[in-house]
Every structure is written in C-alpha cells, then in structure tokens.
C-alpha cells in the first residue's frame, strides 16, 4: 500500500529545538544600555599602546586615569566589521569547525589547576601529563568540536609555562586548539610562531587559523595589557581571539541578570571594538563565563540556574550581533 503525497507549494520547516530568550525590543534595550555605559562611563585600559589605538579610532581617552570612552558609532562599526562566521581550522583539515548562527558545539573546560587522578581517584595539582591526556581525549571524542586548553601544567617553569602548554596540546590533538592562559606578552609571538611552523608560515595562518586564544576583560569594565596585546597580535595574523567576560552578578556586576548582561556586554564589546580598531576584520568570538556570585556562600557556582540563564542570554546577544559565541554550559 502506498499513498501518493506530493510536494507542497509552500511549507515552513523549522530546524532544531530552541528557546527564545528576549524579544527584539529587549535585545535592543540591552544594546542601548551598553552603548550608554561605554560612552558615559567608559572602560579602563592600562596599556599605552591600546589607549593610543582607541584614541586614533575616535574614543575619548583620559591618559591620567586610563579611562576610555567609546562612541556608539565605533561599537556599531566594530560589530559590522567583525566576521560573522569563523572557521576554527584543525591541523589535519578533517576537524575544521564552523562557528556561526545558532550551530551548537562543545569544548573542554579550561583551565583547571587540579585533576582527579585516574588511578587514585583523589584530587591533586595538574601537571603536563594531564594536559597531554586531556588533549588525547579531546582528540578522540566527537563531541569535542575544538580543544580548549583544559588544565595548567604546573610542573613547568612559570615564565615559559604558557608555551610548554601550547607545545603539549599542539603535539597531542589535531583539532583546533584554544589557549586559555597566555600569561606573558613576550610569549604571544612565539605561540603564533608555533602555529606558523605547523602550517608553513605566518602568512598561511589567515587561511588555516589552527589556533586561537582566550582572554578575559576584568570585571567591572577593565581591559588589561595582556588582553589588548593578545587581541592585537593574534588579530594581525588572522587568528581568532575569544573575548570572554567573567562577570559575577552581585559581586562585579549588579545582582540583576539584565544589569549583569549590560556590564558583560560592555566588556566584550569594548574588546571587540579594540580588536577591530587594531586589525579591521579580525576574527573575534563573543565569549562568556558570566554567572551569579552566591552571596550566602561567597562562591561562584557554575551549576546554578543563573549560569544557564546568563549564558543562554549571551548566546542570544551574540546572535543579535551576528557574532560567533563561546559560552559556559556543561
């Protein structure tokens, strides 16, 4: 038995199951509140180079306090010039991961300072071998879309630790690698050179951006030198930078989630404005580890409903801006 069911002339088909966080009016209001903060209050920037770039780009800079006031048009321009799609290239070309729109993927956490030992089951300080293990597992597991530098190698010398870590994960996974903890400005070019050695030159990184880095503005409303250095230097060679705010509602931002999202948004957008002023068109990721600060326990729980709400809200904001997102979740 077979019934003929012909094509319909019109049929609206929905892909995926989703939740709707905000109305367009609400998103616009969060955006306007953010523009007001960035212009009226501004952001603290402590690198002279970064202050100059902001000034040349049209911001009002007070060199005595480091306060940078960003004009609304600068923000609108940066949102438009930052790419909406980023391909996180893998070194084998088999795991290139596309970040855009509402595609959903996962990554490891980064970067822990202790691990549960595989043999004893007890927590201990993380070391280089643990980083090797997380990279091998990240390489193996299909759900890991890109590898984020999962633990710190605390048995390595402090001043070159970030490079030891990069060497470790680059050797042990073919997937795209995101460095979570570039700690020394002087090591940033060396990190870039490692990727250049893999793809055959710095000029090839535009086509094969096999690494990226994460950097966090300090809440509330500060962009430190290490962050602006990472954004400027990686952007120059076309490598993605994940600008990730770690706002804590009730501590570094208002206790309200809407107010927290405004501060969060101001911090990330200030980083994105800087990125686009330093290297127009450079890939930037809209990142968040924003959650609530538990005012009774004095801790920052990441299993709280507020974390889910904040980061779903952040994903909605990133889509509103047409920017790729990287948020806390699992």
């Amino acid at each position, binding site marked *: 038995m077979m019934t003929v069911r012909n094509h319909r002339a019109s049929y609206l088909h929905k892909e995926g199951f*989703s939740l709707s966080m905000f109305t367009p009016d609400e998103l616009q209001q969060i955006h306007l509140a953010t523009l007001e903060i960035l212009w009226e209050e501004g952001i603290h920037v402590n690198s002279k180079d970064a202050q100059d770039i902001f000034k040349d780009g049209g911001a009002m800079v007070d060199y005595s306090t480091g306060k940078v006031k960003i004009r609304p048009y600068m923000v609108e321009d940066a949102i438009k010039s930052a790419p909406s799609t980023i391909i996180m290239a893998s070194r084998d070309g088999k795991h290139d991961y596309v970040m855009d*729109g509402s595609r959903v993927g996962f990554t490891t956490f980064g970067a822990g300072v202790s691990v549960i030992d595989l043999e004893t089951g007890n927590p201990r300080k993380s070391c280089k071998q643990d980083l090797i293990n997380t990279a091998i597992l990240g390489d193996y597991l299909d759900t*890991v879309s890109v590898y984020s530098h999962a633990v710190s190698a605390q048995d390595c010398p402090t001043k070159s630790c970030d490079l030891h870590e990069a060497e470790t994960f680059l050797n042990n996974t073919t997937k795209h690698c995101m460095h979570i903890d570039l700690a020394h400005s002087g090591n940033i070019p*060396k990190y870039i050179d490692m990727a250049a050695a893999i793809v055959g030159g710095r000029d090839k990184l535009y086509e094969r951006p096999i690494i990226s880095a994460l950097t966090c503005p300090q809440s509330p409303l500060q962009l430190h030198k290490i962050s602006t250095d990472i954004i400027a230097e990686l952007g120059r060679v076309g490598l993605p930078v994940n600008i990730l705010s770690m706002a804590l509602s009730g501590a570094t931002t208002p206790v309200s989630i809407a107010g927290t999202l405004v501060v969060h948004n101001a911090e990330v957008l200030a980083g994105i404005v800087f990125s686009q002023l330093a290297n127009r068109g450079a890939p930037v990721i809209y990142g968040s580890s924003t959650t609530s600060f538990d005012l009774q326990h004095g801790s920052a*729980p*990441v299993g709280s409903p507020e974390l889910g709400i904040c980061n779903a809200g952040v*994903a909605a904001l990133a889509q509103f801006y047409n920017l790729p997102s990287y*948020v806390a979740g*699992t």
Partner: protein
Amino acid sequence: MMAALAGANVIYGMGMLEMGVTFSYAQLLLDDAIAKMVQRVVSGVDVTDDLLAVDVIKEVGGGQGKQFLTCQHTVDFMRKEQVQGGLFDRSVRQTWMANTGGKDVAERANDTAKEILSNHKPEPLEKTVQKEIRRLVESAE
C-alpha cells in the same frame, strides 16, 4: 542545555568540577554522553511525511498484538530519531548488576578514559615541526 537551546556555537566546561578548579577525566566522558543527548534535543522534531509516518501507522493498525518493533520504518529511523545513553546505563538494576558487577557510572567513565588513553594515538606533528616548537619553548626560558 539552556545555552545549547539558545544556539551557542561552542559551549565549554566538559570535564570540569568544583567551579572550574578541578578537571575530572570521568566527568569529561560523562559530559561527552550528555553532549550527545543535548545535541539530540537541539536537533528537534523533524516534521516530514516520512517521519509523520501516516502510511506506517495505517499499515500496522491498532489493537491487540500490533506493534512497531519489527517495522522497516523503525529500523530505518531509529539511529536518527533516538540517541543512546552511552555510559549512562538504561538497564534495570538486575541487568546492570549482571553486566557491570555494580560498577557505577563514574567508575566506568574513568575506565573508559584509561582505555582511550592507552589506545588512541593522535596523528603526531612532523619531526622538524616538533623541533621548531621545542626551540620556541626553550627560547623563552
């Protein structure tokens, strides 16, 4: 789950415990299983003629002894429509005891991590590239 439903491109945290202080291999493997299930939820409910399965429903019909277990339609779409629990054992207690000897999910996840680590060999970098990277590390010391 909420971030996934909101369409975040990369959701981080796999393997993390204790507010980001501690990494657990077992948790990484459990998060892998959870991520697969979340991906299934995100993929939603596809409404097409094939999946509405009106013809199949009519063919099987209703009443005592009728079932879909042996339908070709079930075989054709089971992998697309259903996700397995992976490390999360969906058996009843007796079967779980018989199969695992009562090992809980965290122990089995830890075992799986060890197994992957002893068998999986990621493609290495070329020797000359490895050397260049080593030289860059040493130049910072």
